[in-house]
Structure formats: C-alpha cells, structure tokens
C-alpha cells in the first residue's frame, strides 16, 4: 500500500515491521511521534519512561532478555542517556536494539543545536541516517539486522526535516523473530574492570568490521553524474543537493554515517575533479575525509549553523537566486506564546509582580520568558532550574547578598530530572523555593502522559506519583498547593514562601487548558462602560485580549474563561457575557 507518512511514522512502521517488541521513550521534539505511532500497535509493549536514561536502560533490559527493543529521544535526550550508551557499546546486545535520536538544526524547538553523530563516534557504535520516509522505514528494519549481526546497539539519526516531512512509503509485513534464549554471560554483561578490559578489544574489532561493512553496504551508494564535482552527503541534505544540482554532480550518498567508509570515499574522490561535503551542523564527514587524506571542501563554504535548503546549496555553487516578490513594510513578529487560559500565566504574573529572580526549565513554561511577562532569568537543560537555584542561592549566601529567588519546573520535567536537584536542596538544607508547575501533562511535546498524571501511554489508568508525599519523604516541611487561576492565593503563598528560611515547595496545580479532559468556562467579555483603558489586563500577555478603539477586547473564540484577567482588573470591567450586558 502506498501511503504518505512523516518520517517519524515511517520509523515507527519500520521498527514494528522489523519485529520490535519493547519500546521505552521520553518525549522530545522532533522525536515524539515515533513512540506515539508505535503505541498504536497493541501487539508490542510501549511506554513513556521518566527520562531518556531510564528508557535506554529499559530497552537494554529487553534486549538482554532476548527481544528486539527500541528507544526514541531528541538530541539533548541522548546526553541524558549517554551513561548507559557508552557501556552498552561494550556489552553489546542479545536481541537487536535501536536508539533513535532526532537532531534539531535551526532549533525549531530546542535549546541547542548539537550534532549527535559525535556520540556514535565517541561510543564506537554504528549510526544510520535516512533521507526520506521510505528510507526511515527500510533503515529501521536494517538497523535490527545490523544490531544483531554485529552485536551492537545501533543509533538511528533523524533531523527535524526528515522526522516531520511526509513522503510516500510502501508498507510491508511485520516479521517478528522468536526471542533469543537468555543465557547468563557475565563476561559480556557484567561490566566491571576485569570483564570490560576484555570487551574493549571486541569494541575495536567490531568497529573495523563495521567499517568493512560500510564499504560495500547498499546503505552507502554512488550516484554517478557530472565529473567536475562530487558531493558527499547524507540525510536531508541529499534531497537539497538533488533539488539544487540535479545530475550536474556525482553524489556519494551515505546512509550510514558512522563508521564511515575509507576505500569507498577514496574511490569516489578519485572519480571526480573536486569533492564537496554537504552536511548540516558540524564538519563530521569532512573531518573523516581529511583524516583519510582526501581533500574536500565543506565548512569553508557551508555554515555550521542552522538548516540548509536547495537555495543554500545553489548559492554555494554560484547559481543565481530565484527572483521573488519583495515586501517593504515591516512585518511584526509572531512569536509562540502561552495559550489563552494557560495555568502558568498566573504563576508568572505573580513572580514578576514580586520581583523574583526565576531559574526556569524546559517546557511550555519557557514561554514565560517572552514579553510582556518576561519572568525568567535562565533556562539550561531538563532539571537545571532546581539544582541551579540551590547553587545560585549558595553563591548569594556565601557572599552576603540577598535576593528574592525561585525556580519553576513542570511536572514531567520534575520527574525527569528535577527530583535529584530537589534531593540536593533537602539534603543540604538549602533555603530555596521550588515551584512545580503541575499542569498534569507533558505539554510542549503535544500532551504525553507522565508518572504524575495517573495515565499510561495508551491513556489507561496507571501509577501516579503523589508530589506532596514525595516532597515530604525527601524531608521538606514546607509544601503548599495553589491554584494559579487564583491570583490572590498564589501571591500570598509565594510571598510567604519567599520569606521562609528553609527548603520550600509550592505546587502550582491546574491541568493544561488544552487537555480534552479539561472543561473550560464560557468566554469572558469587557464591559466597555467600566473599562478605563488602564491596560493592566494586557500585562498578562494573553492572546485572547487585545486593545482596540480605546479599550480592552476579549476574543471569544480564544478565551477559555479562566478569569485571571477578571481577577486583575481594578475596575471589575471583565466578566461573563451576562455580567457585561
């Protein structure tokens, strides 16, 4: 059957057709849909794990038991999973194991632009990289075969443009191998020094064998064309090269980006006058070419930053840019923002009003950094708000300074990596205020359940972490729960806890307004007779409120009736429809 699929769905299909039995992942744009699509197959086990390290270890355990397993994450998630990754290289696998990692060049939804190919090189394991959805499907199946025949976990690299672009695929049948019997093999799976020392030579030999495989595997192919220029490329760049240069150039298209072939590259280079490496982000293939003595151009003509496109490549080859319409008027930006009715808004408004320095974290609430709320001071990585706040407060205290400080972290991020920072605060008695923005969902990645929501990946009832009990068990004595729609109560709680001289947690609890299980109230409206045009409501940065013809106006298709603006209006001009009439 011919079907249009995003890359992520095709990867999911390929893993499923390839016989995956256990999948454990943590959501992260642009990787999330792989696991979501896999979860539609009820003949396999899928789950959301608390973080990528746990997910990778679950996949390892499943592989150890003898079934094919996978885990999927975004590029920064692989940092979290790096610990098991490096030693998994030594143990190898029992059942095949695939680790999907999605990079985000141009940072559409990420905090950095790291290039995950370096992990494959550093951990000495193979990495595949598809160029469209059909390859996503085919390579995912191939990844299991490579994993089992070379006794290695396999990294599967995507980028945003492959993960989220749809192209045509042909579906196949699922072929699930019988489980490989489990046998106790301490010398392979117990990585203590005596055993690990014996495994390291295996890792080096495996890399040699994989390099030999890369020389002849159909994953890497030469497409002969013009002989003046030969392009070495992979992933989405291959499509841009084809679009911009057609058959004017010869192409060495790499489907396996680690280890890289040596003879194949030398042969290709010898067949053309000039070799150009075209790859987004780092000069990874380029460095390899230099190391094996092949002269290439790469980052001297292409940027190490952002996404490429056909015109980026055309420009580098001196092809004239296409004529286009020019718009002279300045166009106001339209940055993403917190939704109308977002429960985070009341918390951020209160923090800003109280002049609090706020260490932030990763999630929808990072949007609290946007004006007009502009309530955040830092965002680093998952969980860093909590541990960072402790360090910030120690830095102040050690040098006799005082500031009002707090951190904000969402429920999912808290379970992912905030709990360990909280343990540090409790253990070391840090007078720090941790605000958990509990909206009962993993929001930014598009509503995935997590261990605090009470539902599993299928939406079925599941275990639920009691955040208050967890904080108590860690030794916190000051634990408050507030409703962020109630500005007065939120303000009182935050003011009091800022004064506390011991560790303190405020749980700001209100489910995400976009959740299907949340019923919203009817939209509010402004009584223009009462509105004095003070614009206080506009300071909330709610997309449903704008200012027209001298007074505030509420857009009733966006308004969810949360009432935060009504609570803020000094002239009681905002209310329900009937109140306004």
């Amino acid at each position, binding site marked *: 059957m011919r079907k249009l699929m995003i890359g992520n769905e095709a990867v999911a299909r390929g893993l499923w057709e390839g016989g995956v039995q256990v999948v454990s992942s943590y959501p992260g744009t642009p990787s999330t849909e792989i696991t979501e699509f896999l979860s539609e197959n009820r003949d396999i086990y899928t789950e959301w794990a608390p973080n990528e390290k746990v997910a990778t270890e679950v996949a390892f355990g499943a592989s150890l038991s003898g079934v094919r397993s996978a885990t999927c994450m975004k590029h920064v998630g692989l940092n979290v999973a790096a610990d098991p990754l490096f030693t998994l290289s030594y143990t190898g696998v029992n059942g095949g194991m695939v680790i999907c990692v999605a990079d985000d060049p141009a940072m559409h939804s990420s905090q950095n632009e790291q290039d995950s190919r370096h992990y494959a090189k550093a951990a000495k394991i193979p990495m595949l990289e598809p160029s469209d959805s059909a390859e996503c499907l085919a390579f995912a199946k191939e990844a299991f075969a490579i994993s089992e025949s070379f006794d290695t976990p396999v990294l599967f690299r995507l980028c945003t443009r492959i993960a989220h672009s*749809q192209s045509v695929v042909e579906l196949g049948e699922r072929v699930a191998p019988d489980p490989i019997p489990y046998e106790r093999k301490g010398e392979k799976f117990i990585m203590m020094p005596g055993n690990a020392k014996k495994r390291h030579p295996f890792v080096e030999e495996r890399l040699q064998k994989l390099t030999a495989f890369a020389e002849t595997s159909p994953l890497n192919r030469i497409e002969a064309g013009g002989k003046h220029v030969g392009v070495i490329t992979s992933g989405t760049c291959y499509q841009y090269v084809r679009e911009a240069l057609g058959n004017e150039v010869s192409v060495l298209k790499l489907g396996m980006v680690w280890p890289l072939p040596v003879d194949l590259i030398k042969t290709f280079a010898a067949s053309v006058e000039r070799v150009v490496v075209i790859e987004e982000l780092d000069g990874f293939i380029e460095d390899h070419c230099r190391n094996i003595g092949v002269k290439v151009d790469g980052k001297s003509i292409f940027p190490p930053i952002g996404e490429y496109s056909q015109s980026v490549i055309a420009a580098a080859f001196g092809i004239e840019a296409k004529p286009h319409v020019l718009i002279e008027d300045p166009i106001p930006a339209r940055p993403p923002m917190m939704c109308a009715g977002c429960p985070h808004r009341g918390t951020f408004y209160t923090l800003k009003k109280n002049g609090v320095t706020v260490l932030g974290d990763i999630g929808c609430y990072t949007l609290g950094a946007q004006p007009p709320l502009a309530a955040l001071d830092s965002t680093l990585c998952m969980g860093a708000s909590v541990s960072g706040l402790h360090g910030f407060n120690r830095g102040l205290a050690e040098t006799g300074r005082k500031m009002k400080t707090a951190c904000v972290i969402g429920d999912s991020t808290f379970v992912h990596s905030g709990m360990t920072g909280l343990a540090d605060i409790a253990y070391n008695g840090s007078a720090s205020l941790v605000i958990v923005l509990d909206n009962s969902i993993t929001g930014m990645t598009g509503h995935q359940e997590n261990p605090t929501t009470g539902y599993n990946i299928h939406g079925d009832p599941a275990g639920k972490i009691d955040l208050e009990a967890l904080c108590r068990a860690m030794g916190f004595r000051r634990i408050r729960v507030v409703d962020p729609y109630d500005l007065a109560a939120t303000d009182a709680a935050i003011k009091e806890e800022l004064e506390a001289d011991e560790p303190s947690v405020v749980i700001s609890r209100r489910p995400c307004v976009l959740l299907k299980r949340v019923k919203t109230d009817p939209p509010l409206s402004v009584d223009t007779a009462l509105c004095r045009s003070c614009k206080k409501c506009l300071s909330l940065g709610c997309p449903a409120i704008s200012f027209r013809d001298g007074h505030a106006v509420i857009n009733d298709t966006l308004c969810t009736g949360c009432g935060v603006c009504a609570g803020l209006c000094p002239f009681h001009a905002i209310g329900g429809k009937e109140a306004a009439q």
Partner: protein
Amino acid sequence: MKTVNIMIVGVGGQGSLLASKLLGKVLVDAGYDVKVSEVHGMSQRGGSVVTYVRYGDKVASPIIDLGESDYILSFEKLEAARYAEYLSPRGKIIVNTQEIDPMPVIVGRAVYPSHILNELESKDVTVDAIDALSLAEKAGTAKAVNVVLLGRLARSLSEVPRESWLEAIRSSVKPKFVEVNLRAFDLGYSLD
C-alpha cells in the same frame, strides 16, 4: 511535469494540519510523488506556522525556498505578507482577510500593518482575498476556515477533480463533521 509548490501559512491552532493532510492525501491518491513538510513543537503555540506541499513526477527537497512557491494559502492576513516573498513571480496567493494580532501588537510594541492587501496587489502576483471566517460560519462552524480555504485552493488545482477532494474529506474527517466540512469546502470552491 514541473513540480508544483504550495505553501500553507497561518497562526498555530488555525487547523493548517488538517488542510495539509487532505491536500497530501488527494495528491498521493492522484498518483503524484508528494512531499509535505511542517514543523511541530514550540512554534505551534500561537506562533507563525508554515507547511510546504510539493507534488510532481519526482520530488526531492521537502521544503520550498524564496521565489519558488506557485501558490500560498494564507489563513491570516499578516502571515500572507510575512511569506509573500516565497511566491514565484506570477504566483497566486489566497488570503483569508481575518486579522489575528500577534503579541507585539497586543502589547503595543508594534502596529498591525493596514495596507497588506494593497501592497500585495501592487506586485506581479495574483491576489485572491476572501473572508473565509464568514464563509466558515455560514457553513456551520468558525473552525472550518481551513476547509473553506482548501476549497478555494482546489479551484485552482484543476488537474485534480472536485470529487477527489470531497472523497478525501469524507474519509479523513470524523463522521459527525463531514457535512459541515463538505459545505465549507463548497463555499470556498464555488465562490466567484
């Protein structure tokens, strides 16, 4: 055939996902090679969103660059201006005249430009401005703005028969929303 390029632009939450899904399905069923590219994630939170749709005998790149788009389907007026530079000379831009203020306008740091349609019309492109919101309301729900606009675009893509679009709507939309979406499609398609 030459690859045809279509961009769908708008504001996160306006339903461009359904429009691109229907468009992609119709084109694949018609036997074309098709690529559709959009970015999910942070940009969806009320931000400016763009989807690229390309079809032809063989499509390589999933994205569309400046000056390459044969059609732009804009769900909002300001977004039409933002992406107009992607239009090829003599390309066609279908604009929903609805205005949605971006945050810089809401907080008074910027002004919503008042002459967008005039400026577009002064260029070497075809401008088709319609009030899709009113038509969607006429069809039965303001949420069908996306399908009204898709209907408008479908009129221009004469190589695909009208019935294929209706079939795609019937098979892709939840049963209880089929009728309203068929009405919305027709209002966009039949508008003079």
